[in-house]
């Protein structure tokens, strides 16, 4: 089985101080750490599980700058056989639609039986790329998938809806499956695998291979700003002893316990 997995390198912003840069349209990246997008870690694992079950090979593909190769090497260390980087630095402004177009161009020339992506990238939070990719390739898709059972040419997939309700579908392969976190338990890469991945070849695709005449940009970020605060918590100051006493008093006065 030929398995493709889309992987994005994203800044880790959940517990970082995220600041707008001087252009007003992007963030200051220097002080942030970067890693594989969370859902993509699960997508990669699912791809590797597929390979272990059905044989074949896994190709990890990422549109990003040169440092995306670092993330692709992690994918190689975790079980991907090949890696492809589409050189974002040569391709101007990028949004979800253009990302999917570029991924489709790179994937079109390769054999594939199934394509995994994450359900959402944590930086832009679009939840678009996987589904657009499927439509551009003319294959079916299913999003927010937390379980897949594949057979010859078809798959039973389970989408997770609001409230944890599952939607069980039967689909023909090839298809794009956008993976929700929790679908599996991702493995760690062994040190040996990491070392081995360091010397592997990463295929690159740039403007020489892609004529951008047909590429469309649908969305453009005009401005980034701190969300306006409608309700702000009363921050209780002091050491652990002081804040705890104060909180306990509030709980008592309000009769919350």
């Amino acid at each position, binding site marked *: 089985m030929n398995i493709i997995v889309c992987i994005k390198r994203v800044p880790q912003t959940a517990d970082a101080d995220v600041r707008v840069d001087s252009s007003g349209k992007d963030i200051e990246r220097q002080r942030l750490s970067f890693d594989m997008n969370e859902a993509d870690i699960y997508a990669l694992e699912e791809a590797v599980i597929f390979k272990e079950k059905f044989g074949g090979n896994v190709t990890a593909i990422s549109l990003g700058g040169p440092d995306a190769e670092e993330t692709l090497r992690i994918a190689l260390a975790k079980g991907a056989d090949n890696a492809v980087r589409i050189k974002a630095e040569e391709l101007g402004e990028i949004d979800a639609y253009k990302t999917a177009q570029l991924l489709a161009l790179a994937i079109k020339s390769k054999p594939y039986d199934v394509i995994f992506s994450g359900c959402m990238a944590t930086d832009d939070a679009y939840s678009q790329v996987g*589904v657009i990719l499927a439509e551009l390739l003319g294959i079916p898709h299913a999003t927010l998938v937390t379980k897949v059972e594949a057979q010859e040419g078809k798959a039973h997939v389970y989408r997770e809806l609001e409230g944890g309700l599952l939607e069980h579908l039967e689909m023909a392969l090839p298809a794009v499956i956008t993976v929700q976190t929790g679908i599996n338990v991702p493995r760690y890469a062994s040190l040996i695998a990491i070392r081995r991945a360091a010397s592997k070849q990463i295929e690159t695709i740039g403007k020489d291979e892609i004529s951008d005449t047909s590429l469309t940009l649908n969305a453009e970020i005009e401005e980034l700003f701190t969300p306006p605060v409608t309700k702000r918590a009363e921050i209780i100051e002091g050491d652990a002893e002081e804040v705890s006493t104060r909180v306990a008093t509030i709980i008592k006065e309000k009769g919350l316990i």
Partner: protein
Amino acid sequence: MAGILALVEHRQGTLRDITFETLACGRLLAQQLGESLTGVILAENPDEFAEQLKSHAHRLILVNSPVFKNFNAECYQEALSQIIRSENPTIVLMGHSAFGMDLAPSLATSLSIPLMTDCLAVDFHDGILKVTRQMYDGKLNARVKLRKHPSYLLTLRSGTFTDDQAQLNAEIVNLDLALAGEPDYRRFIEYIEPVVGEIDITKSDVVVGVGRGIKEKENIALVEDFAKAIGGVVGCTRPIVDAEWLPKDRQIGSSGKTIKPKLYIAVGVSGAFQHVAGMKGAETIIAINKDPNAPIFNEADYGIVDDLFKVLPVLKEKISEIKG
């Protein structure tokens, strides 16, 4: 014919809340643009839904077919493509839900319409459409301009647009579409209800929510212990369930449970909107987080900006004291 088109979302025979929010946003836009709002109901026997939505739109398009009993993005896309082509709406709206996420990107792509997802606000002037949405774990908002086009497709974040009890009287249009039926390549099989566990976090007056700030599985015991001392139960964020540190029935949020306790204490929880969706109904919210910019502090009533490992033991003691 221009206008605003809003897609009605229903599941297992019931309209979803997001439908009313989407229609509310649609009315707002219709008023601003001097256009009318049309709700689209794709359902098996749509009449009852139409009855419930009559006052929410200027017009309701009803397509009655058994293929719409359950959600299948392919069937929805086929019908909506036809409707959008004939209506030429200025803006098409739907929820940024499990339904909208599965449908909107492929629909927009097939029709070459610019799409933006998870919108919090919509601004449309002189044919230029801009939306406000969140990025980077909710730490920043972005104003995004879409490519100029006669039609746009937007998905809306739930809980953002409030239903303002409209008093319209919709014209009902029953539409007969030629539909291919459910395709072989994607077939709906069934819905599977979530598993019910031993503890029902929706029934407790006091819930302690634990998030990734807890760092390790072993530390969950700390929170269990704290919750027990203050007479509450432990709920959690999605990553805690993903890591299998707590069972799925403890998950609070859009893809987990919705709780409305008297007291919710968030411990090492960042406050992603998918989590907040499940707990914002709590009477009083207290958050402990070491990051002063964590979005949870925009939801909480009281905040403690500190290391949870330092605060939790002391807080346990103090609350135990007042409990007596």
